[in-house]
């Protein structure tokens, strides 16, 4: 029965796409497509929930009727990620109804035709039980998200960013595929089950190569520093609901792949794997949030914040590997639960923030923080839920983001049991730094965008947001609050999930601790809140903001996003390395200038020191290779002859 439902769910997605693209011109179809898609997603949600909460495992195997291994498998890990995909997609689809409402008919068809199969590709990645299907979904995911990006235009900038995105994704996909193919001589078939059976028995050096390849391959997709380069470029130009999906869900498929391969298939990790993952995670978290702090375009900022959160998830995964390597299954389970729960939480609050950014863009036609301001009274529904998203992303207690950060802190603190040198507790400082910078960053985002006075006409005359935009944001905000107040709902099934991946793991005591503490804290805060509200029952009067006794305070006198982050940027200036140029005309009269121009360009140092040289190297190599292309057919025949000779030699001596 559940096998049938799973297959039905998979087929219903392309069906929705087909309906949209074939009959998208009809008004009724325009109404029907989102409903069809929502229905499919709810079905998926039910299947995933049954699997994640009740541990119902589903297997579908078509290998018998096909010449190659093909099948689906839904265990707790897949169920968890399927739950994340479907759960986030429901509000995104709801939001898309109004977002895509302004598209012309052709664009509308493309959008609703591509969106369901983009969702399908992500679902395929997490439910695939064979390498073939996994890679199919993996590749479709890249291509379909790229096509969705192209819906909103194909100007020069966009094409450049898209090219970088595609190039990076294919480097990653190649590394992932290579890591899978290395199993070929050892595993009888390329199914995850067969690979898992041989994983521990592989030669040690091969295991290391597989681990490193998968770390790089999935790391590109997840956007760990220094492979995060594509992320703010691609996420910022996609249609906003797609950005939300890319940030909240697509990045998580990389986490899924990494967990599946490292914990599920390779198993028995070495300790240094963990330290590698942990180190990269810490660097990603701190640098990601520093870049976010310096960014003033809402969607780019949110994309950099995703980099930070991916870093935190990797910190959890690295800790789990370290603990597992030292033979401490309960602590490994704790760290793995922290990582996976943070993946879920980030999926929730980041989709909320991206959708909020989409609503802001629809209402004001801009995403530049310096042109926004005062949106809360103009878009109250969006504003309140966006505030909850910001607080969750800043990791504040009573919301979901805090619980996973607390679990990460707790696992780091537990690291003292390991060794004489307290490396892991020291890293608490770095994670705390990322946390407080995130707090500052989201104060900036919310305060500059939604509070104060509007900084431009676009913000002053912001249009109302559509009702289902409000609704979709409310749904996610509610989920953030519920998981923050009652984290046990997700933590207990996650602990069962960790038990399937880590041998001998029992439920860590922290799960019960935090699950029972959060409602108490919430009750305490509520009590104090009521008390404080009773203290403050006095009359109030509205007056002009104080402007040093002068009338006429204008919006230009407020702090901007740039000035807000200036003190922090100057403290961390080693990270930003801005290129500044100040031109004063005429140059010989600096105190009486006619014209002053000031430019400040921030390129990340990775672009200059890592990417530029490697791109130059590839181009130079290609130029040298071009000499082989003489255009002379005899020379080409010679090449073929030499190649055959070389192959024969290899076969003779190998």
């Amino acid at each position, binding site marked *: 029965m559940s096998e049938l439902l799973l297959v039905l769910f998979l087929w219903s997605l392309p069906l929705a796409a087909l309906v949209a693209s074939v009959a998208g011109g009809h008004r009724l179809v325009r109404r029907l497509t989102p409903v069809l898609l929502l229905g499919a997603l709810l079905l998926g949600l039910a299947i995933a929930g049954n699997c994640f909460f009740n541990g119902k495992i589903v297997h579908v195997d078509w290998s018998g009727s096909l010449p190659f291994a093909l099948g689906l498998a839904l265990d707790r890990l897949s169920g968890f990620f399927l739950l994340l995909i479907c759960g986030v997609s429901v509000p995104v689809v709801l939001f898309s109804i109004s977002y895509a409402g302004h598209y012309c008919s052709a664009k509308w068809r493309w959008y609703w035709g591509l969106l369901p199969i983009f969702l399908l590709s992500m679902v395929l990645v997490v439910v695939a039980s064979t390498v073939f299907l996994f890679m199919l979904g993996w590749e479709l995911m890249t291509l379909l998200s790229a096509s969705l990006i192209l819906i909103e235009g194909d100007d020069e900038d966009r094409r450049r960013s898209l090219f970088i995105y595609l190039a990076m994704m294919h480097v990653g996909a190649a590394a992932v595929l290579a890591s899978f193919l290395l199993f070929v001589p050892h595993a009888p078939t390329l199914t995850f089950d067969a690979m898992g059976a041989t994983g521990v028995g592989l030669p040690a050096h091969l295991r290391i190569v597989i681990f490193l390849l998968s770390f790089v391959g999935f790391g590109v997709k997840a956007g760990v520093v220094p492979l995060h380069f594509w992320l703010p470029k691609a996420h910022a130009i996609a249609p906003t609901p797609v950005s939300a999906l890319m940030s909240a869900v697509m990045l998580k498929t990389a986490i899924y792949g990494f967990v599946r391969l490292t914990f599920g298939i390779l198993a028995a990790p070495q300790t240094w794997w963990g330290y590698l993952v942990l180190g990269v995670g810490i660097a990603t978290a701190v640098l990601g949030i520093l870049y976010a702090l310096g960014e003033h375009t809402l969607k780019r900022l949110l994309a950099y914040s995703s980099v930070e959160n991916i870093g935190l998830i990797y910190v959890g995964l690295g800790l789990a590997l370290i603990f597992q390597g030292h033979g401490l299954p309960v602590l490994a389970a704790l760290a793995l639960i922290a990582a996976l729960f943070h993946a879920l939480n980030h999926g929730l609050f980041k989709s909320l923030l991206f959708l909020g950014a989409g609503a802001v863009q629809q209402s004001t036609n801009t995403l530049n923080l310096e042109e926004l301001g005062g949106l809360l009274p103009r878009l109250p529904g969006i504003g309140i839920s966006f505030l909850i998203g910001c607080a969750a992303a800043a990791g*504040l207690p009573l919301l979901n983001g805090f619980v996973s950060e607390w679990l990460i802190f707790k696992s780091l603190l537990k690291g003292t049991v390991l060794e004489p040198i307290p490396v892991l507790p020291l890293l608490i400082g770095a994670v705390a730094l990322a946390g407080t910078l995130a707090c500052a960053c989201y104060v900036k985002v*919310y305060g*500059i965008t939604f509070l104060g006075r509007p900084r431009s006409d676009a913000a002053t005359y912001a249009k109302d947001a559509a009702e289902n935009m409000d609704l979709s944001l409310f749904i996610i905000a509610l989920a953030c609050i519920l998981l923050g107040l009652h984290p046990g709902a997700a933590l207990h099934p996650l602990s069962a999930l960790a038990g399937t991946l880590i041998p001998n793991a029992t439920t860590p005591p922290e799960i019960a601790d935090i699950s029972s503490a959060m409602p108490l804290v919430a009750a305490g805060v509520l009590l104090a809140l009521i008390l404080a509200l009773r203290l403050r029952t006095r*009359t109030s009067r509205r007056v*002009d903001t104080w402007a040093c006794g002068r009338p006429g305070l204008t919006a230009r006198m407020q702090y901007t996003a740039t000035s807000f982050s200036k003190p922090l940027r100057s403290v961390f200036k080693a990270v930003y390395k801005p290129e500044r140029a100040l031109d004063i005309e005429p140059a010989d009269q600096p105190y009486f200038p006619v014209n002053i121009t000031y430019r400040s360009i921030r390129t990340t140092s990775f672009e200059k020191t890592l990417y530029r040289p490697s791109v130059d190297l590839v181009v130079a190599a290609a130029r040298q290779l071009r000499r082989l292309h003489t255009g002379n057919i005899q020379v080409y025949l010679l090449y073929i002859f030499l190649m055959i000779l070389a192959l024969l030699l290899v076969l003779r001596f190998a």
Partner: protein
Amino acid sequence: MRNVLINSAQLLILVLAAPLLRGVISKLKAWIQKRQGASVWRPYADLWKLLHKEELIPNTSTVVFRFAPVIGFAVTVAAAAFLPVLHPAALLSLDGDIFLFVYLLAISRFVMSLGALDGGSAFGGMGSSREALVAALAESPLFLALTALAVLAKTGSLSQIAGWTMGQNFFDVSTVHILAFVALAIVAVAETGRIPVDNPTTHLELTMIHEAMVLEYSGPSLALIEWSQAIKLHLLAALMISAFAPWGMSLASTPIGLAAALGAYAGKLACLVMALALVESSVAKLRMYVVPDFLRVAWALAILAVIFTAITKR
């Protein structure tokens, strides 16, 4: 039941005695400057006065401005529930509440910074931007100093750390404790906006941090802000006392023991307050961009404290 009563009394002491702490500090500072100074009960009168005044609200502001002081007050009071004062237990306790405690105080800063930006003037932005700087640099050493203690005590709960420290010999005090104490003292000065990081009595645009944030507030909201600021100062003082010098806390919770514990607590608090008053009277406020250097000292000390946990006998 008895324990719940004692724990609630602890919470009430932390919340209700906080303005007195401020009064004592300003009295001490006045004495050092050879002035008469206002009564130590003056902060209570100020709160009473402000609570009965009409509130002025900037016309561009929203619900965030209105609710920020209330939420800030509520979470500060909630954070107080985690601290032991009279005996090594607290109303709320959790293995790992050191992190929860700091994050609850972070909520207060988050909403107050937003409230400041909501006023729509330059001062609010200035204040919240500078507060973000100080907080970003002060919070990590705070985490690390608490981590060092947690590693030694093998527990992440504030009340259990106090209980563990009580079992130690005072003269056997470790390097970790000294380093963490100094780091925590620097952080406490920065977090509560005292000299040399910020001056709570200034209203000069160039220097103010916290005062710039709350410039638009008046009446009952201002009272709540002042009160929660006082509670925060008291919390950090109580944190230092319970983590580094809990001796004198009552283990058996007898009435006499509790009274003695209260006396001991008041004495230790008086020492801290005197030190703070002396520092505030003898040191000039730092320039804004020297504050990060000051906080880096706390960073270095806190990192050393964590490293030294490895060589301290456990």
